[in-house]
């Protein structure tokens, strides 16, 4: 099937198998390897991207379902050489170790702050509860998102 997907502002037209997962489309077809794959059952969330601004697990979305839609991946967070505050927050607060869950966490964090610029700890935990991290025990991810909330205008 021929699909047209706008990823990080750039439109890509490709012929794909109907069964191709969005995560594999992004990684293997477009070379956007920042989005990871981890479980196939929508449990781990390392594949989270934004589809029309809403976090989705791209291992459970077919590429053809993204036809005509806009996808934002971790590679799209940095704009004009400026890191998104959530990216800065994860560095400031040691919100990552192995880095594998980080892109998905960042995409959900961005969505959360877009809807709720001042989330409390419970709201942050709720927002990331569909995603797993095996390294941080979540503590510093929560702090990272709080840092981003408190530094929405931060430049880096």
């Amino acid at each position, binding site marked *: 099937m021929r699909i047209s997907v706008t990823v990080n502002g750039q439109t890509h037209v490709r012929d794909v*198998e109907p*069964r*191709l997962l969005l995560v*594999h489309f992004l*990684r*293997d077809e477009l*070379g*956007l*390897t*920042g*989005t*990871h*794959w*981890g*479980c*196939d*059952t929508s*449990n*781990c969330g*390392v594949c989270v991207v934004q589809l029309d601004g809403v976090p989705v697990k791209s291992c459970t979305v077919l590429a053809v379902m993204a036809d005509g839609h806009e996808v934002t*991946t*971790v*590679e799209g*967070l*940095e704009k004009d050489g400026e*890191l998104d505050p959530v*990216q800065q927050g*994860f*560095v*400031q607060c*040691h919100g*990552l*170790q*192995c*880095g*594998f*869950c*980080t*892109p998905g966490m*960042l995409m959900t964090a961005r969505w959360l702050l877009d809807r709720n610029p001042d989330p409390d*700890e419970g709201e*942050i*935990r*709720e927002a*990331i*509860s*569909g*995603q*797993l*991290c*095996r*390294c*941080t*025990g*979540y*503590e*510093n*991810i*929560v702090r990272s998102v709080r840092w981003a909330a408190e530094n929405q205008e931060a430049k880096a």
Partner: protein
Amino acid sequence: MSTPMGFGRMHRKEDARFIRGRGGYVDDVQLPGMLYGAVLRSPHAHAWIRSVDTAAAEAHPKVRAVITGATLAGLNLDWMPTLSADTQAVLATDKVRFQGQEVAFVVAEDRYSARDALELIDVDYEPLDPVIDARTALDEGAPVIRDDQEGRTDNRIFDWEAGDRAAADAVFARAEVTVSQDMLYPRVHPAPLETCGAVADFDKVTGKLTVWCPTQAPHAHRTLYAMVAGLPEHKIRVISPDIGGGFGGKVGIYPGYVCAIVGSIVTGRPVKWMEDRSENLMSTAFARDYHMRGEVAATRDGRIQAIRVKVLADHGAFNGTAQPSKFPAGFFHVFTGSYDIQAAHCEVTGVYTNKAPGGVAYACSFRITEAVYLVERMIDVLAAELGADPAELRMKNLLRPEQFPYTTPTGWEYDSGDYQKTLQLAMDMAGYDALRREQAEKRARGEPMGIGISFFTEAVGAGPRKHMDILGLGMADGAELRVHPTGKAVLRVSCQTQGQGHETTFAQIVAAELGISPDDVEVVHGDTDQTPFGLGTYGSRSTPVSGAATAMVARKVRERARQVASAMLEASPQDLEWSVGESGGAWTVAGTGASRTIQEIALAAHSNLELPDGVEGHLDATCVYNPPNLTYPFGAYICVVDVDPGTGQVKVRRFVAVDDCGNRINPMIVEGQVHGGLADGVGMALMQLMAFDEEGNHLGASFMDYLLPTALECPSWELGETVTPSPHHPIGAKGVGESATVGSPAAVVNAVIDALAPYGVRHADMPLTPAAVWRAIQGDPIRTDLAIT
């Protein structure tokens, strides 16, 4: 946060790529002409293979090769050695021995076609009775799993003991109080979010094999590939790229890696193989599965005198535990824990079952997790028997500072400790007395609340080569340090980060020794062509071994710099003094202001400066560090839980963790590692379980069934620290990566059992799911009937 000239908090250098989605993991490797592999796995736990028909798969238009056990047998690669000097089938030839075992390997043009072709392979199985419950593995008439081993008539792998049985028995015979408790540390899996995989690229022209693989031990992999496949070792390059979590599960060599290599040799093209999550959970290294009976002898007033343990260890179908040859049960015999106990004895029997191989994986420091859980549960069982406060009982029996270095009844030499101080700090932080008062009030209202304590001593940094090896390879690690003419440095180490932040912390070690900025030190690791030999990162050994090597090699560089500085300053080397000031490291002529910075010396070392005889110039150095002893970090953990008696739901309300890992290179990173381990403890205590049905079907083969803690199950961790440096480590550091995983499960379980005490519960096995807790409240705690005689 500013960058310190050495130790201290600094942001991680590696973060820059990860937050941009520019990490480079194995599945990100793309090579021209690359093919994709997929593994066909056994649906049976135990079955003869009567035939394997690959004709239809081979006819698939996108398939380039189908490899079976028979193919490998022709290359003498159908079996490979495990890390315990057992053998493991790469692809099964005679029979399958666990569900998920590798049977065939398809190489195709793309991922999806490789998977499609698996469906076209027809395997004729003849099912056999499996051995699933380890407690039946030694029964008369039990099916013999490893009939590939000549002369084998049962499923016993080893019987092993440590300590002094007679001495322990004598104490027990006259003890005022004895307690006994059976407990299971169930089978769990480390489940890193990145599964295992490999890209193999064999170049027929040069004869060079390059393997990208997320291995925690790249050098050991290279040597084993050379030994197994007969490939010359200098023609093998193992590249361990960014790793999406390891936790011990990425130490060993898995059949898929070997298949990818063979696939590349057969097709002449690079081959990528990535397992899926079910494959990861079903076939890669599990952890624990220890059936234990603990016994403690004590005086009526709570002085612990002796401890005995019997263990039945389920090792799965192949003995694949990574551990020193001398110690088939790993370091389990450190089970006297943090206490002053005069006599101890343990015996461990290892058995084969029809389950996946593995054993020492999951941040456990070679079975210390099991040992700590055992002793910490037993202390609480004793406290319940005596009616004593568990904190007081621990305080009374902990080793005292003046007893260090302390040799345990089973032969471990603890390097340093100040245990009471650490426990007291944890109690102060938790507000222990106030918590007990709150608990009493809640109990009066029928609201179960529990306070659980765990005090652990770890033994990490394996290890002294006379005692410790993996498959005969000594556990020393190398380091190389190059200092460029402009004073910038490149450190090459054998260990490999899986998220521990070595690019930052190892740069900090060099920075501290040379008085330069960590930003001026590049750390190279994970590539066997670029780094010196060493056994890698597991068992919390990076800082104790490679970190020590790094400090020592930097000191060598500093000494070379002294020689050059003496030529520069026209002074005798012994008249020079080293100092690190605001502007960095420098050699100064004692009593004068004449001084040269390390950068000035580096430039001079590469210049036309005339050097004395015997001084080579340049500052580069290498070293190999053979640790004289392990390091023994320790800590005190206190967990507070609330239990809903109607549903059995456990809520971890608070968790206080005081860790003592000696000197901390980067406290931010230490705290992060502790956080992660504490989450592991909550997960193992309350959620994680690799269960099997009686046919050997794996009941936890996805994240829908194998439950891992999310941000909602984890409380906000409360950390504290004490610092008792290791006396023998060059920078006084001890390993810490696994401390929290080792120490925390017992704290959570002790808290839950404490909450259930009013219901008469003295023990229930992990995971303490709502169902398990509810049954315990009803007087029917599951699995407490485990009997090992």
